[in-house]
């Protein structure tokens, strides 16, 4: 049997998805038994040029992490789509835009203003900003273009499967490898995470789930066992896809939603707001919500119905 040709790539991301792949630890040795890694910039010296030289559909499966923030990210997404039979959006950035997608509340100009002019440690009397093309005395220097809007991978190219999470849960990564190796894959467009919500994996006890007010996590005397909603704290568990084993609630922190939309949910933030509305005892509870975008769309703004803020 021919070995599978596998590629890993990172676009606008933090590197945590690469660490998650390393976190399968010694099992990486099993993966190497059934697969040849043909492109993995973190670990191997295989170049863009080598990828460009590959015949189309040469790669059996490409795990693509990171959002599309710059023109270089977009170029690599298109190139790897062309060269791969299966393209898997790997991790929250590629699937949903992750926290980088919160940049869609502003645009390039505002982000540059903060980074290069306003921050109190910056001294920039000439108002210099990085330039995509810059003539210097020795020649010219180039930087890739920074877009106004963060996009997900599926908003850029066609995606075959989604493996969300920030980073994706290790057991799900291993299951995805097995499913691909055995050819036992769900229908195209499916998520490779379990078909349940974080609440289904959470050991905390659900009681009457009535919301009388909204408290912040540092304002409660946590009893370490009752559902956060019962303790009047917002938790993204009901709206978020599981697979993580409810790691955050297990160390007494509410789910913040990194798994992306729960099964059959298209807009994670709307689902959470709807869950909240259904258990609020009084409309005034809604007024207690601070930062709704950051709370309900922390990882999924770029992949939501809202997508971005309109800049006037």
């Amino acid at each position, binding site marked *: 049997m021919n070995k599978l040709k596998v590629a890993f*790539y*990172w*676009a*606008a*991301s*933090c*590197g*945590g998805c690469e*660490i*998650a792949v390393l*976190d399968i*630890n010694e099992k990486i040795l099993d993966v190497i038994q059934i697969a040849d890694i043909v492109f993995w*910039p973190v670990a*191997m*010296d*295989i*170049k863009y040029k080598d990828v460009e030289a590959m015949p189309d559909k040469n790669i059996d499966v490409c795990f693509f992490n*990171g959002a599309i*923030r710059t023109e270089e990210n977009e170029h690599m997404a298109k190139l790897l789509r062309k060269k791969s039979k299966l393209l898997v959006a790997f991790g929250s950035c590629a699937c949903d835009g992750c*926290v*980088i997608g919160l*940049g869609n*509340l*502003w645009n390039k100009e505002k*982000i540059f*203003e903060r*980074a*290069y002019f306003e*921050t*109190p*440690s910056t*001294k920039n009397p000439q108002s*210099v900003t*990085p*330039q995509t093309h*810059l003539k*210097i005395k*020795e*020649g010219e*220097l180039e*930087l*890739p273009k*920074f877009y106004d809007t963060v996009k997900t991978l599926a908003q850029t190219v066609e995606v075959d499967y989604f493996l969300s999470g*920030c*980073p994706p849960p290790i057991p799900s990564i291993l299951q995805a490898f097995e499913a691909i190796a055995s050819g036992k894959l769900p229908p195209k467009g499916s998520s490779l995470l379990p078909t349940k919500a974080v609440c289904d994996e959470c050991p905390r006890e659900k009681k009457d789930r009535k919301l009388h007010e909204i408290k*912040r*996590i*540092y304002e409660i005397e*946590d009893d370490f066992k009752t559902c956060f909603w019962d303790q009047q704290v917002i938790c993204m568990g009901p709206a978020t896809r599981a697979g*993580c084993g409810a*790691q955050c609630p297990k*160390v*007494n*922190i509410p789910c*913040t939603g990194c798994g992306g939309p729960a099964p059959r949910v298209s807009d994670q933030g709307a689902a959470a707001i709807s869950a909240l509305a259904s258990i609020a005892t009084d409309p005034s509870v809604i007024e207690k919500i*601070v*930062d709704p975008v*950051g*709370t309900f769309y*922390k990882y999924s703004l770029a992949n939501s119905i809202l997508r971005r803020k309109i800049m006037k």
Partner: protein
Amino acid sequence: MKEIVINPITRLEGHGKITIFLNDKGDVENAYFQVPELRGFEKFCEGRRAEDLPIITTRICGVCPVAHHMASAKALDAAFNVEPTETAKKLRELEYVAYYIYDHILHFYFLGGPDFVVGPDAPPAKRNVLGVIEKAGLEIGKEVIKHRAYGQKITGMLGGRPTHPVSACVPGGIAKALSEEERREIETMIRSCVEFAKFSLKLFDDIVLKNADYVNLIKSEPYTLKTYYMGTVDKNNHVNFYDGKVRVVDPNGKEFVKFAPSEYLDIIEEHVEPWTYVKLPYLKKVGWNGFIDGVESGIYRVGPLGRLNAAEGMATPLANEEYKRMYKTLGGKPVHATLAFHWARLIELLYATERALELVTDPDITKKDIKNKPGKPGEGVGIVEAARGTLIHHYILDEKALAKKVNLIVATTHNAPGICMSIKNAATGLIRNGKVSDGILNMVEMAFRAYDPCFACATHFAVGEMPLEVEIYDSEKRLVKKLRR
């Protein structure tokens, strides 16, 4: 004028590009080190809930998320005017040194070490972790995987998750206490890590220090930079990763300033260049005088060598012996040899394991008093030593405890000016008469690799690690040579 482009550079966390310009004689006229991306955390953290900041900012970097988590937690402690309980501090520090264990192992064995273990001009296909395992043996490879995994596992047990931990996002404490059963499990892992750290130093001894060529390379001019150094120290001026004051020494090793986190704006300023997305920090009192070293230049360096130079010793016995040995071997303090970062990193690995053992055997560590009550939200600065250097988070919160303003100065950002210069020095010293080979270009890359740079952090930007390709153009921009690996 010829132009050499190394794009992208490899074996680091993040994306960088080197452009070297040669004059008509084929010597280096100038070299630019560019960081090509940006994500903009300082902007999109505005308006977020305070308790979300230690969760959002971990996404600056998946390699050192624990550093951002703790700097953020400490900034919130300060902003809410609350001191964590003793137990909470110790649990946070234990999580923190466990992160050092996996991060320093990752750099030595996967990223920087191959240059020494396999050799700076070894074939590119061997210059990686597999080459290290091949040379050192599969058994050692398994030990590397095991101990990196221990660091990740302990971080996960205390932080909830190994990558992007969550447990310290409650100002004034930590959300989860440690059970005796967990404590015992961690102690067993740590004891093994202490031995592994000792082994790693011995490996460095055998492979690097017993090889006169390597020692000469470390001490050589192209890899030397006489800068100021910065690092966090305890009350005895010993290196501390989690807490203390930040000490700066001048290029002669004399204390220049020692400051509390809240004073950082009096000490540090950042300069902007139009050819890179990364900002360039310098000591405010000395000023930005361009890419030069010496007492007159405000450029300073952080990270393992920066910390050891800025301190007067290590707080644990074995690491302190190694500390003394390093300075004795390399000719006293401060050490300006950039490649000594690797040695310093392994001394810190030993310190991290010894400190972890102290903490995990401390009777306080399993106590249940893990939270103090926060006060009213305001302004706060949190500083920790990330594996790659001093990390500053500065928040201004409004009355609803939402972030009004956020400023971040991240480990590799401090080192960016030094990295630019190290690359130029190495290129100038190694490329003569237009003669370039893969080995020479790798030795140029070694100048940045020593810093273990993380450009994801440095620009809070997007990572991507690419292989090397070099194109050499003549003065008419005709392609004269192409090198690949």
